[in-house]
């Protein structure tokens, strides 16, 4: 069988970005493989390691610098890669339609897509791709098992999780918790040098949607200082985190 894993390069969450004239200035940012996409590569590798005879093809899209992300996938263990190269920003539906052509051409059975695009946060690419292909789709996936052409998956829903069963082909959208991606080891980095990377100009056709305006949101930090000794300051911090910020919950509540 053939597994495709869709990749995008995004600014490193730890790199320095500046806001200028209401928009992001990304010059000087370092780029990495989107962490959500990394879960997809790892999931594909685990399917193969579970004993399935599978070819894994990493498919990247974006500017030429995306080859770095694609090579990371090759070094992690993907067999070969395709890069749809293009500088312009496209909406997720447009990208999904271009990717659907690759999926059909490769005659893939299983496609992993990062859950969100770390830079645009659209969470739309996986669903749009499944729709374009007319395939089943599993969203926010935290567990995935394959047995023949039958899969079982667990995915997050608002009040917990659901377990789903279905048959290939399927598009699986990743979520944190799906796995712990491996490091590309040095020997695998060296081996990846000899794997094929097929770069093509992205032919996306007409954009389905264009961004016409851009406005930044700025929020001041509260800069609250808690006085008093350590014990009372800690108590006050817990109270604020629980009652105001609502990031803490008491047991049973």
């Amino acid at each position: 069988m053939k597994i495709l894993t869709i990749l995008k390069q995004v600014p490193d969450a730890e790199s320095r970005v500046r806001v200028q004239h209401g928009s992001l200035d990304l010059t000087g940012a370092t780029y990495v493989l989107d962490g959500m996409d990394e879960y997809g590569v790892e999931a594909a590798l685990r399917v193969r390691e579970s004993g399935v005879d599978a070819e894994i093809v990493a498919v990247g899209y974006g500017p030429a610098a995306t080859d770095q992300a694609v090579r990371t996938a090759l070094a992690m263990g993907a067999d070969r890669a395709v890069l749809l190269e293009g500088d312009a920003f496209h909406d997720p539906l447009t990208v999904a339609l271009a990717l659907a052509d690759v999926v059909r051409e490769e005659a893939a059975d299983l496609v992993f897509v990062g859950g969100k695009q770390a830079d645009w946060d659209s969470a739309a690419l996986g669903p749009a791709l499944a729709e374009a292909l007319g395939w089943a789709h599993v969203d926010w996936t935290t567990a995935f098992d394959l047995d023949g052409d039958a899969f079982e998956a667990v995915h997050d829903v608002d009040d917990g999780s659901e377990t789903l069963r279905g048959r290939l082909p399927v598009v699986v959208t990743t979520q944190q918790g799906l796995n712990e991606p491996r490091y590309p080891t040095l020997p695998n980095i060296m081996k990846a040098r000899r794997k094929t990377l097929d770069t093509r100009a992205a032919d996306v056709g007409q954009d389905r949607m264009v961004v016409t305006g851009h406005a930044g949101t700025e929020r001041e930090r509260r800069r609250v200082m808690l006085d008093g000794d350590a014990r009372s300051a800690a108590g006050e911090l817990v109270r604020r985190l629980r009652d105001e910020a609502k990031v803490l919950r008491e047991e049973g509540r």
Partner: protein
Amino acid sequence: MIDFELSPEQRQIRDLAQRFARDEVMPHAAAWDRDATYPADTVAAAADLGLLNVGVPTEHGGLGLAMLDEALVAEELAYACMGFYTILMASDLGVTPVVIKGTSEQQARFLRPLTEGPRLAAFALSEPDNGSDAAALRTRARIEGDEIVLDGSKMWISNGAEAEWVVVFATADPSAGHRGVVAVVVERGTPGLRAQPIHGKLGQRCAPTAELVLDGVRVPRANVLGEVGDGFALAMRTLDRTRIPVAAGSVGVARRALDEAARYAAERQAFGAPINRLQAIQFKLADMAINVETARLATWRAAWLVDQGRPDAAASAIAKCYASDAAFATANEALHVHGGYGYVDEYPVAKLLRDVKLNQIYEGTNEVMRLVIARSLVR
């Protein structure tokens, strides 16, 4: 003609080393230093990722990493802990003479096992009574039929007690000076070989160092690298290469010192503002950045020459000398920027200074580096 862009693989190699350094080395470095523990598990984890013995050629199961690639790894690991990197570096120091001069039979016998697990090599040139004047070594090598018998002692041997084997330099003829030197591979457990750990080091305390006592150690002549008499030149050719990782490690320490100083200077307030508003502090940071950048340039150039098949003794010595002096100065200034807090172990800067002092001493002191550089100038 000049291109400072790293290749995609080189960026991956650096990223891997950086990630490993951040996740597996940095969180433990202070405790290893305090307790002088040898981090066996982390060495094994490094071996799993392929970061150990990177110089072993591909035909013997290794990666045959280029020197520039090795420099990238060195900088990242030393950024987290120079002592930890010394463990890996000293193993490659042992590997290098076997790569340069070993027959393919010797390479298969000694190098392949190093690629099959977390196994170390070592290099034993220095002795209790001579270091800089290496040709004055006194360890005796007597040839008896098919065997070589070694007697003497070797001082300051990194990985000396842990290594699978050690390249021992000895003299077959003390009256012949450096022309009498022979390089012999001695395997651990050979009768008569004893390792005496050395304690109480100022820095790099997780990197084990030992004195090796050789008392009638018999090894087959098949363990001699090259011929009797080739040993000294082999030691020098080895060091011409391995000084580059010392330089690269120094760059890593310097970069860490700069980062620590910049962070602290942004947090620490004096006279109503962060101290990084003071031009005196800004200039220190600028000088540190000058050190990091220029040391890296010298290091990469020396590495590039090796990768072009033109290893250059003077270029390596310039890199090692300059980078380690620059790193020492940078760590010293970083400590100073921390004021009183720099003087205690609560912050990592004191360790940086203690650790990097060794870079000015081992693989030839920086005075010896100047001798090597001068030799290329004075004819």
